[in-house]
């Protein structure tokens, strides 16, 4: 009899703003791990090219961008060869776009789990977003190859890549929490999310550079947190112009606000998920 140590759960209607209960999410970290593992394992099953898709998507996009924006429109690229210029931005961008897409659809896609089993619901969109890291690893190897081919000399700034990836993850998760919680009630999200991602890309310096913006506008641009990520990537890997420090700082702040509000909205809506999904 372990009754002394038995946990006591109180089940009652929750009202108003609720606690995030992150500790409980931590207790369910193994489930998180298994869900990420499942997503990764299943993603390219029964596809002919398998994980090569993780390479082909950014590569093909880079080729199209190079042709249209680089050659035809002659978009200035800070003196960097356009393929390298766009690919360096596409790697974090594609990671972000995939993670956002996966996490915003994750709740509706897991309807059966929501209706039949209890666990902290936050686990689902978080697992969906984390799954994108594997694709990121694959596309990063191509980026590394391109850096070699173009004989780019790396500096200690490379170390900034990891925190920038974390920043991209925070942004995708923040937006993903909002969209996934909304999608339980409003299926419109399924159609809105791809649009939103597309607009967001053109609002982010992926095909062009933000270096022509003067201060303070460049820093203000950081309010789009993905702008900070993309410019940070270019600066860390390609050594372009001025350090985007203030811009990235603004992006970090914006990303944290997005994540915190997303998490609270998610938790607030969580109690309705099983009934509505």
């Amino acid at each position, binding site marked *: 009899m*372990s009754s002394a140590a038995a*946990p006591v759960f109180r089940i009652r*209607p929750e009202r108003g703003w609720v606690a995030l209960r992150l500790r409980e999410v931590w207790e369910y970290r193994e489930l998180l791990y*298994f869900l990420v593992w499942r997503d990764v394992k299943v993603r390219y099953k029964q596809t002919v090219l398998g994980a090569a898709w993780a390479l082909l998507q950014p590569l093909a996009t880079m080729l199209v961008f190079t042709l249209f924006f680089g050659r035809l429109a002659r978009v200035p690229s800070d003196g960097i060869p356009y393929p390298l210029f766009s690919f360096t931005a596409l790697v974090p961008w594609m990671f972000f776009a995939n993670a956002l897409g996966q996490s915003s659809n994750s709740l509706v896609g897991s309807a059966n789990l*929501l*209706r039949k*089993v209890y666990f902290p619901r936050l686990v689902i969109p978080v697992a969906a977003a984390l799954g994108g890291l594997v694709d990121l690893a694959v596309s990063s190897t191509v980026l590394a190859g391109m850096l070699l081919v173009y004989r780019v000399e790396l500096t200690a700034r490379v170390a900034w890549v990891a925190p920038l990836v974390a920043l991209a993850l925070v942004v995708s998760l923040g937006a993903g929490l909002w969209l996934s919680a909304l999608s339980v009630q409003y*299926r419109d999200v399924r159609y809105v999310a791809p649009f939103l991602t597309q607009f967001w890309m053109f609002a982010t310096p992926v095909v062009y550079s933000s270096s022509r913006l003067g201060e303070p506008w460049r820093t203000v641009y950081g309010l789009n947190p993905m702008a900070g990520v993309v410019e940070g990537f270019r600066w860390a890997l390609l050594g372009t112009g001025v350090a985007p420090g203030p811009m990235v700082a603004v992006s970090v702040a914006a990303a944290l606000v997005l994540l915190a509000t997303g998490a609270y909205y998610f938790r607030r809506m969580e109690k309705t998920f*099983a009934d*509505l999904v």
Partner: protein
Amino acid sequence: MSEIAIRTEGLGKLYTLGRSRANKYRTLGETLSEAAGWLRRRNGSHARETIWAIQDVSFEIGRGEVVGVIGRNGAGKTTLLKILSRITEPSAGEAEIRGRVGSLLEVGTGFHPDLTGRENVYLNGAILGMKRVEIERRFDQIVAFAEVEKFLDTAVKHYSSGMYLRLAFAVAAHLDPEILLVDEVLAVGDAVFQKKCLGKMGEVAGEGRTVLFVSHNMTAVRGLCGRVIRMEGGHITADSTDVDAVVSEYLTAGMEACACREWPDVETAPGNDRIRIRRARLEPATITVSTPFQIEVEYWIRKPGTRVGLSLFVHNQEGVCIFNSTTAREPCWHGKPHPEGLFRSVCRVPGNLLNAGSYTVFVKFYQGGAKGVLYQHTDLLLFEVQDIVEDRGEWFGRWPGAVRPDLRWTTAAVTEWN
């Protein structure tokens, strides 16, 4: 009741109709137009239709109690389990649960068809709240229980439905919670599978764990549970340790109307100008597989001199005719001209003949001289034969077979080695 494992007080769950049921999700457009409507008629009656799936549910369950929850579909049993397993939040009241909860509303939740059996065991275990080390420790037991050793590395989409279910149940069966909440998960699969599941349930119940068991399998409830809670329309209508009494009452509720039918007015009674049925009934009204009973039919003969024979058919739920019996060897009236008046024919059915289940009675009145059918009435009676728990050992599932004779056995040694 030494220590309380589950306590609920005034638990209620309110659903909004039209949104939570038929049209569960809504589009942004609907919300916008609703908002516009709300602005227009601020004080208008904007009440959506709501329904209490359960209301004012209070009970206490002691540690180690095995409690069955019974009731018809829509009585609120599943909603109650969903609240207790924290899947959905109550709208009123509160519940307190002491101990690690394992809930099983469905077997195989989260199984992914593209993953192998081995992978799904880990995934499903994690979803049900098992730790990785626990799954590893029990992995061999799970696989042995499911009998899928050879197919562990095959994607489960290639499994037969039986293998799939066995594996899914095996994972769930090896959960190790202090409190187990089980919904009607044992209703699936074939007899062998059900036998296995119920055996395991019996084992779990015997280990001193607290179990809340929702089921339509009354035999299982009788065999496994020491207490039963009956729900009707979202309320608890019975809560007793006299399981047999509550179960019998539940089974016969609404059933008596069909086990005895009467038409007091001869002009409107079913029949024609030669014969009309006055009454049909089962005596006694509630029976088990072992009780002898009789089927009585009373009828008016309206035309003197009619030669009447009765033919009675009993069909089971599957529509299979279990037997047909006629008055052919009835000594007094069969085939003889009847005077005008009221007659009663009684057919005596021995015990240990019908299997548990529900049956319908079909009656044919025919002319003694093989001139054909005078009148026939389908579904004249509907009755239920209840199962008995005695002599079943560990097995609470459906007893196979259309009939359930109590047969004698003998075993003798023919030759003995050594």
